[in-house]
């Protein structure tokens, strides 16, 4: 990174006026000046994949950053949410054995935060509380994607991608959801990564000529989703939907008549779920003009 002292001085003046970290970057990605701290720059460069893995490792060492005890990366998406507020809320919400180490804002506007937490469940619980606290305090919608656990600076880039993928999954499949961990994506990850050229063929092979007959029928689709969420347990599904078990069986029979899949069988249920998620993904992409 080439830095111009005069440019940096001017940037700092702007930073004081705007309260934002700023950088000046050429078209080919070279940073001329920046007000980001060294750690923030390190995280930002990892996110933008503008340095090699070896350089990342060397810079981490120079900054005395040791991730061997395990870290998580959070991607926080919220409108008009100051980075400083996220840091304050994180510091306030975390228990003694946890720490929000440092954060930066990515090129797409998400705030990336490194979280030092002992385990997956502890990380997810902490993030859930953080999301709730931020929404309560900032009164703005907040979504947080959580990477899988990483233990080295070289993994940081992958962690950023995972956290952003979790955010994409929220947007595509569960817009009501507040937080989502990459490790929980399951079939939705397969749907997100499913090649577009094969998607239509897969949909029709699994669900027949008119997949919309089930996928766009709200009652049938909700019934199918509830059955899958309840591990194919009919009694629990009926209870959750507040319908009689006979009504549930009638609806499952109808789904089978329409698309040929018996959702009481695991293989059919799994194929159906992947097809349904591909359908949702395509709808979301069409809605956004892709």
């Amino acid at each position, binding site marked *: 990174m080439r830095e111009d002292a005069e440019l940096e001085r001017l940037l700092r003046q702007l930073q004081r006026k705007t309260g934002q970290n700023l950088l000046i970057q050429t078209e080919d990605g070279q940073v001329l000046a920046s007000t980001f701290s060294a750690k923030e720059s390190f995280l930002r460069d990892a996110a933008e994949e503008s340095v090699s893995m070896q350089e990342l490792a060397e810079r981490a060492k120079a900054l005395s950053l040791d991730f061997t005890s395990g870290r998580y990366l959070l991607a926080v998406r919220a409108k008009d949410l100051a980075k400083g507020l996220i840091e304050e809320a994180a510091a306030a919400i975390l228990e003694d054995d946890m720490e929000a180490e440092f954060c930066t804002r990515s090129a797409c506007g998400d705030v990336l935060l490194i979280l030092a937490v002992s385990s997956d469940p502890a990380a997810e619980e902490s993030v859930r509380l953080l999301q709730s606290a931020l929404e*309560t305090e900032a009164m703005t919608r907040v979504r947080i994607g959580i990477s899988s656990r990483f233990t080295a600076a070289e993994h940081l880039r992958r962690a950023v991608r995972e956290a952003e993928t979790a955010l994409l999954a929220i947007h595509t499949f569960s817009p009501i959801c507040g937080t989502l961990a990459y490790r929980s994506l399951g079939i939705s990850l397969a749907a997100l990564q499913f090649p577009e050229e094969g998607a239509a063929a897969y949909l029709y092979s699994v669900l027949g000529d008119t997949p919309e007959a089930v996928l766009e029928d709200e009652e049938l689709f909700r019934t199918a989703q509830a059955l899958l969420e309840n591990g194919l347990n009919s009694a629990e599904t009926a209870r959750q939907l507040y319908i009689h078990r006979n009504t549930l069986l009638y609806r499952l029979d109808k789904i089978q008549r329409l698309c040929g899949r018996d959702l009481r069988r695991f293989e059919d249920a799994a194929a159906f779920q992947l097809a349904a998620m591909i359908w949702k993904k395509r709808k979301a992409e069409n809605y956004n003009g892709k």
Partner: protein
Amino acid sequence: MAGLSLQHIFKKYDNGFEAVKDFNLEIEDKEFIIFVGPSGCGKSTTLRMIAGLEEITSGDLYIGDERVNDVEPKNRDIAMVFQSYALYPHMTVYDNMAFGLKLRKIPKDEIDKKVHEAAKILDIEHLLDRKPRALSGGQRQRVAMGRAIVRNPKIFLMDEPLSNLDAKLRVQMRIEISKLHQRLGTTIIYVTHDQTEAMTLGTRIVVMKDGVVQQVDTPQNLYNKPANLFVAGFIGSPQMNIVDVNLTKEGENLYASFAGNKVAVASDAAKVLEEKGYTGKTVTMGIRPEDIYEEKDMPDAAEDQKIPAEIRVYELLGAEVFLYFDIEKANFTARVNPDTSVRTGSKLKFVLDMKKAHFFDKETEVSIL
């Protein structure tokens, strides 16, 4: 004044999912109104649209006389209490309640005044120096509400605030919230999936399913006059017994037949069913467990009110007994006196109080009566 008006509110996400459809509701100033429904019915989404945490796809939201669709959440004079309320573990109760105000750069003396006022209302002034780990579940819940109260909002939005508490504490906190409503004198909109909580807390309840309002009514009317099959099955525990019946006319009487049984429909209901052209058709009949009696408890009941049954499960709950029996594929539950001698395997006749029976159109599931 902080009444609300929701007019033709829709919420559609980018993936095409319609979470809320044509939601219309007028909420009076100072009213305590409940949104209830199963998970995913749109109740929390509606609450979040009122708060401004979700954008309204179409429709108008008024708070008082002001249209607030485009008003920032922080400017709507609203405070929320979430299910996963987070108390900051390192801070005292005082600092927990003051945190949000500090972030908004409120002057220190004003913060102090607001925190003490809220603590007094909640009766937690003696806890201000404690940290959350030194508090009971109920006390923590009160602190969570205190964080909302210090904002002096016109409207409180509560999204399943008691669902993380155990059953006993939930009952206690319901009473506290009820008292709080009276003390604060503000509008409260409360979301829950628990129909018992809704029935005990609210003066008016909005029942939702799949993003659509099913019925808005008092708890008593929801119980006695459900608008459709969903409301009938959702409200009341144990659930209302539901069975498809064929309506036939014999002489002067209308009969409901199912699984080899025939029961006479009460005259008032029969008149309406006949007038609406349901004679000879199949409809769905509902009857609540407490409206099914042992034959011995209704000695004057006519034979055409009775159905034979064999008890599958006997369940004693102390003050009442639930008897579960099947008639072909239809499952029934009866709530009877605890002094019953009936047990699992007993064979007896039950009397259906057909004056309390509900009838629903089989296709539309709407109440016929």
